């Protein structure tokens, strides 16, 4: 439906460089998730695309048209906000109709489109209610309904699930993804939750301090993280990072750090000794935290219940190690 291209996008707030030269392209119908910690610039990037802020430098092209300085009202982009941003004095139906009304569509057209979108989101019974009478999940769906009904060129999602409780988040995550895939609308989704990022993205962007650390498919980011930051950010629990000389890991270049995921650590009969100091049973799996003889800490994840020993013999298979440059953090 629509393609998005960002070229050299930069944003400074006074002396602070919030975004440093971002380049990216979204294919039509693609769901691109931007993930990073608070302050990394991901929300700013979204707001630049929406037109709620103007960039200090660079270009934004929607379908090849330069919209960098265009008024947000004219961009035909819909946004789903973290706090839903529903109009409190309007009913659900009126909330969803507002953009269409401003566009001058006829009442019959509006009613039809609203009914259709409401049906897709299970909101048909709630059309006469006000936002204050709705639950968090319902409000989030109304926020999406408001976006869908406009049939815009793009969707922007600004951490829409952050205000929901954990269980609801899981259900809504799937709903949003299904919806986006069915409607095939090009979408940019911002979150700080790496799990959301992994499950929802066609491609994933990890941002750190205003820069893109890596753009790739979720599995690629998981299996071949481009640097230490991405390695530590994606995957829960986080990847273990070790100094190879101290741990006695050979076959790696000097001045590097080595990473291994908790689920890749093997328990063997004879290997390195791990002194356990904390066990966290998750139900189907268990997290085991401990120390190696060299003093470095390690977390391993393995299926089944907690062990009743105080020590484990483990192996760190060479083919599952990730090597990073100790100075720059980049993958080697």
């Amino acid at each position, binding site marked *: 439906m629509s393609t998005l291209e960002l070229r050299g996008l930069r944003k400074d707030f006074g002396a602070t460089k919030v975004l440093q030269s971002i380049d990216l392209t979204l294919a039509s119908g693609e769901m691109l998730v931007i993930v990073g910690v608070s302050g990394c610039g991901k929300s700013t990037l979204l707001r630049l695309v929406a037109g709620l802020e103007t960039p200090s430098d660079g270009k934004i092209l929607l379908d090849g048209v330069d919209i960098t300085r265009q008024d947000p009202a004219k961009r035909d982009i819909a946004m789903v906000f973290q706090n839903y941003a*529903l109009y409190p004095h309007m009913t659900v139906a009126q909330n969803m109709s507002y953009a269409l009304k401003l566009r001058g569509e006829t009442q019959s057209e509006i009613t039809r489109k609203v009914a259709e979108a409401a049906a897709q989101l299970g909101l048909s019974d709630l059309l006469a209610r006000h936002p204050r009478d709705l639950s968090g999940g319902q409000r989030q769906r109304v926020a999406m309904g408001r976006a869908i009904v406009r049939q815009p060129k793009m969707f922007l999602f600004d951490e829409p699930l952050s205000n929901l409780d954990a269980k609801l988040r899981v259900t809504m995550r799937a709903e949003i993804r299904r919806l986006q895939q069915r409607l095939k609308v090009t979408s940019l989704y911002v979150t700080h939750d790496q799990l959301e990022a992994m499950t929802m993205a066609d491609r994933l962007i990890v941002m750190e301090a205003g820069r893109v650390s890596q753009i790739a498919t979720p599995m690629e980011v998981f299996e071949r993280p481009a640097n230490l930051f991405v390695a530590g950010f994606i995957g829960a629990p986080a990847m273990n990072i070790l100094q190879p000389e101290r741990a006695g890991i050979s076959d790696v270049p000097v001045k590097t750090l080595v990473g291994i995921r908790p689920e890749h650590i093997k328990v063997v009969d004879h290997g390195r000794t791990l002194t356990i100091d904390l066990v966290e049973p998750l139900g189907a799996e268990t997290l085991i935290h401990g120390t190696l003889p060299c003093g470095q800490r390690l977390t391993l994840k393995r299926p089944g219940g907690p062990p009743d020993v105080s020590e484990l013999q483990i192996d760190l298979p060479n083919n599952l190690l990730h090597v990073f440059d100790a100075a720059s953090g980049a993958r080697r």
Partner: protein
Amino acid sequence: MKSKPDYLAHGILLLGVALFILPMWVMLAGATEDAGAIARGGLSLMPDFRHIGIFWQALFAGGTSREGDPVWHMLLVSFVMAVAIAVGKIFISVLSAFAVVFFRFPFRKLAFWTIFLTLMLPIEVRIIPSYAVVSTLGMVNNFSGLTLPLMASATATLLFRQVFTALPDELVEAARLDGARPLQFLRDMVLPVSRANFAALFVILFVYGWNQYLWPLLATSNPAYTTVVLGIVQMMAPDQMTPWNQIMAITTLALLPPIAVVLLLQRAFVRGLAEVDK
């Protein structure tokens, strides 16, 4: 916490209520008393319902106010003046507050502080020169002269500025993305959400306009423009036999509209007053 009645609290509160009711009661008693009896110092505390017709008489028949005009005319003048001031102030203040809060434009700060300045200039302080200005503009003895000088004060603007600034950013952003231009945003979002403030302000400004004395005193000499408050005070001129029963009757009529407005909108008014802060 207590189970037996709080005698002290009720006692004090009842005394307070009585303190305020007393003049009202006496007013009603005086309105329904015979004029001669009052003059002889024989006002009784009980209203005499035989004279209840005095209200009707004051309202519609002549012969009661100083010039002998029916009081309904003065009530009408007061009413139009109060409503004009309330509506006018709210209208221009909403526009100004909206502009100052939602835009950045050259002289914005200057405009705001100029409006703020009006707080430092209550009518009593600028009364003589205000009359001179109004006279120069030829606005003596008409409604513009009566209402415009009281219309530009900053209290409503400050309140709306506070309310508009507190509107969530996301509400504005969502509306913009939906395609709302500024005036549409004002009409569809800002005004509906600020409804409670309108009610409170209307009470405050209506009462303010209705209760004016000094300005109407100077700005109008034509009896057709006499407000009811002004008319009542004029009736107290010591150069004649003061018709107290008529004065009290007219005072009763003059107190009804503002008290009604306060009571009808009491909840919004009380909540809003604490926000207006002035």
